């Protein structure tokens, strides 16, 4: 076999590998969404009013040149310039990263990315076990609340211990978040395993419950409300309880330590799924419950333990949100949980892919701030983009059809389920 043949063979196998195909599909989905988003921006630019066009599409007016003469063209003006918007959205999120990698906007991007890694991998773990955990948001809230409330009591007495206090308090905070989030997720897990209650419904309901109960607890001074503030929040935690901010400035609310921790968690979860008996059980019952049962997997226990793990990851995300960004618990937690679903789907529920998808969504979230400050385009556009990306990721067949037209990745066998059901083994 010649080297060229071998290379082609390798390439062929790569293309067939579902992980690679997933990657291609995700990229194509992203590009297509950006394109359609641009059309929406242009369309919206026609619906709004402005004094001068921000963007003009020039139609080389053959007709005009021919019959009217001159170099003028027919053009259509738009109030919004899609290129400028995308420039603000994608590059704005990085700030002036080349001259100052530690700038505030980039810090925001990284901070968002860090939280999304936790919620993304939380959703992914559950998905791999074929459980649709829509309750990540609620679990994150419960985790954040527990961390904020308990540390508010534990931390102040230790505040004078300096680094030693951090060494104790930080892990304690994360642990509290994880335990609380896990316990809160175990409820729908047990209901699914032992009472056949559909987890999609129960977790949605529990999201509402978590938000309401959190509001109840932190809006009353007799419970955990900070008496010093109008806001519904717990008292601020001392700095020693927080993630140290290393290179970034404290006000940037980001910590490279937290980011590193998040990455370590992603790798750890990947290892857990691919290289441990528990991970094998989890994946098997996610792909084919009957085969899992045949292979000696206790289906009910696996359901409960996987969603508990998922909830624990979400809860840790909540703890990081408190210990890195806010410094206390406050009602009105952003929709990290729902974004986590998006992140996980885009990543094909692969823990390592979650890292990249979280970065993309971190950029989108942070970039939307820049878009809002820097242009008139409503930042809800980012929400539309998010929906479009998911829609396109959900239809791999569409891209396969296009792919087949151009003869690239033609592949026999089952289509890759968009929830990443296929390809469990290929990233091992």
């Amino acid at each position, binding site marked *: 076999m010649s080297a060229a043949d071998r290379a082609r063979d390798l390439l062929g196998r790569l293309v067939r590998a579902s992980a690679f195909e997933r990657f291609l599909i995700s990229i194509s989905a992203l590009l297509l969404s950006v394109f359609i988003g641009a059309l929406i921006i242009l369309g919206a630019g026609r619906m709004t009013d402005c004094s001068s066009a921000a963007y003009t599409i020039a139609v080389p007016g053959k007709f005009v040149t021919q019959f009217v003469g001159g170099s003028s063209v027919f053009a259509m003006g738009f109030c919004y310039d899609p290129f400028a918007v995308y420039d603000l959205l994608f590059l704005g999120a990085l700030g002036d990263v080349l001259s100052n990698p530690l700038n505030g906007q980039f810090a925001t991007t990284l901070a968002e990315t860090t939280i999304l890694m936790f919620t993304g991998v939380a959703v992914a773990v559950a998905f791999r076990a074929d459980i649709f955990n829509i309750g990540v948001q609620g679990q994150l809230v419960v985790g954040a609340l527990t961390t904020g409330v308990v540390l508010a009591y534990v931390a102040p007495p230790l505040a004078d211990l300096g680094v030693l206090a951090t060494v104790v308090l930080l892990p304690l905070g994360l642990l509290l978040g994880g335990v609380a989030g896990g316990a809160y997720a175990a409820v729908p897990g047990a209901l699914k395993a032992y009472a056949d209650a559909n987890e999609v419904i129960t977790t949605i309901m529990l999201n509402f419950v978590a938000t309401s109960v959190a509001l109840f607890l932190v809006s009353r001074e007799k419970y955990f409300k900070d008496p010093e503030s109008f806001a519904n929040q717990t008292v601020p935690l001392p700095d020693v309880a927080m993630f140290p901010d290393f290179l970034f400035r404290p006000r940037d609310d980001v910590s490279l330590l937290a980011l590193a921790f998040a990455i370590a968690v992603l790798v750890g979860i990947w290892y857990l799924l691919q290289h441990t008996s528990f991970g094998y059980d989890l994946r098997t019952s996610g*792909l*084919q419950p009957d085969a899992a049962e*045949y292979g000696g997997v206790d289906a009910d226990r696996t359901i409960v333990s996987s969603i508990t793990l998922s909830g624990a990851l979400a809860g840790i995300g909540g703890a990081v949100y408190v210990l890195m960004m806010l410094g206390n618990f406050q009602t009105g937690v952003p929709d990290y949980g729902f974004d986590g679903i998006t992140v996980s789907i885009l990543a094909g529920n692969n823990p390592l892919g979650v890292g990249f998808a979280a970065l993309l969504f971190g950029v989108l979230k942070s970039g939307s701030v820049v878009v809002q400050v820097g242009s008139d385009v409503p930042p809800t556009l980012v929400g539309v983009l998010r929906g479009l990306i998911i829609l396109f990721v959900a239809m791999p067949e569409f891209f396969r059809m296009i792919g087949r037209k151009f003869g690239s990745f033609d592949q026999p*066998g*089952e289509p890759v389920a968009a929830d990443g059901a296929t390809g*469990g083994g*290929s990233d091992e």
Partner: protein
Amino acid sequence: MTQTDTAVRLEDITKRFPGVVANDNVDLHVERGSVHALLGENGAGKTTLMNVLYGLYQPNSGRVVVDGEPREFDSPRDAIDAGIGMIHQHFMLVDTMTVAENIALGNEPRKWGGLAVDREAARREVVELSERYGFDVDPDQTIADVSVGVQQRVEILKALYRGADVLILDEPTAVLTPQEVEDLFGVLDELTDQGKTVIFITHKLGEAMHAADDVTVLRDGENVGTVDADETTREELAELMVGREVVLDVESTPPDVGETVLDVDSLSVLDDRDVPAVTDVSFAVREGEVFGVAGVDGNGQAELVEAITGLREPEAGTVEFDGRDFTDAPRRERIDGGMAYIPEDRQERGLVMDFDLVENGILGSQHGEPFAGSGTIDWDASREHAEAIVEEYDVRPPNADNDAVSLSGGNQQKFIVGREFERDPRLVVATHPTRGVDIGSQEFIHDRLLELRDEGRGVLLVSSKLDEVQGLSDRLAVMHDGDVMAVVDPDDVTEEELGLLMAGEHPEGYEPRSERDAKGVAQ
């Protein structure tokens, strides 16, 4: 239009699937008013050919001629309009709807200008049709509540309701008891008497000869001959089917039995619908013997095996494995205790279709030595293991990195068999171990099974292939309706006697089963 004698003529039909030629230039002539059997082994292309006739598949080449007119069927609708009806191997019925609704589906009589289904009219027509053909069905029962035999009649009524002149039945007898099979053949006679034409698919020689006027044999997608049922012999048909003379006798040495490995006592099991599927069954399997269970599919064998292997909770009774009570033991404990199990449904249970063979190779062993220690899986050892199975059991293509889904059915089965046999089991529970496997591999699997027996392991063999269970077993239990009719010596029993037992009747000279036979204490 002149009436031709040929109701259906298929000319030069070729149908290809990725990697397979399912039908290769097949010709078929079916006489009007006759029963025409289509015979062939698993995968010979019978169903595909009929799906082409029914408009479900479009042939790559060839022509369909009905009533002397060439037709192109783009969908079953076209075929139905041309007077063709098909009763599929897996019934095409909607469980939640009534008999009458199922029969009328797609051709509902309307009233109020089409705004409503005229349910009375539909019922009337169903009652009328079933009276005309002597069927006994209640139009108002829900499909989920009626027996398989009735469901089949509903399928036939469905075709007749659509005015079918040509009825295709795909393996209609596979799920029926012998009595129901006789009833069915009566129905077929009734149909042909009324001028209908019947094509039925089977791979049972006897049936083809008994019920058909003509028999066409397919092999590897080709028509290898059409013969007159009255003038042919079983031997001739068998040879046409498999392409060589068949030797079904497995040479085996007398067993050298030891301790009891599996002791099943008064076991009762419910099926998915909570209906008793196994009632008060007792038997034992000992080291060094093959204990066979024969019976028509659906007589409780599946539930029995699931109760033994820990996939279904028994209603009553006990299961002892290796001298310990395993009745309520979790599945994992049974695997760890040395119970290997070749499941009936390889694609649902036996393999994780989206895993590659390396991952599938440790299914069931993912928790302990030698592939997993202290919670982590040793993928290198797992790979070696999978590659060894692939090589020894001739799994093709020979690459352990392939996903299970990409393997053909037979190769999937070979891999499962390999994995389970290589477990170093105390007991092998094998259900239909050679289903869908080519002849060469069948022999290999049979030999390995006997080897295991000779090494002193217990084997519980469940198969609906009579020749297989009869040939391999040292003792043979026949199940009917959840009950063990008798435990017999497979070398002494005749096919007729077995047939009667499977149909729930005791042939003369046979005692009802006794505890002694079942447990094999006397031997």
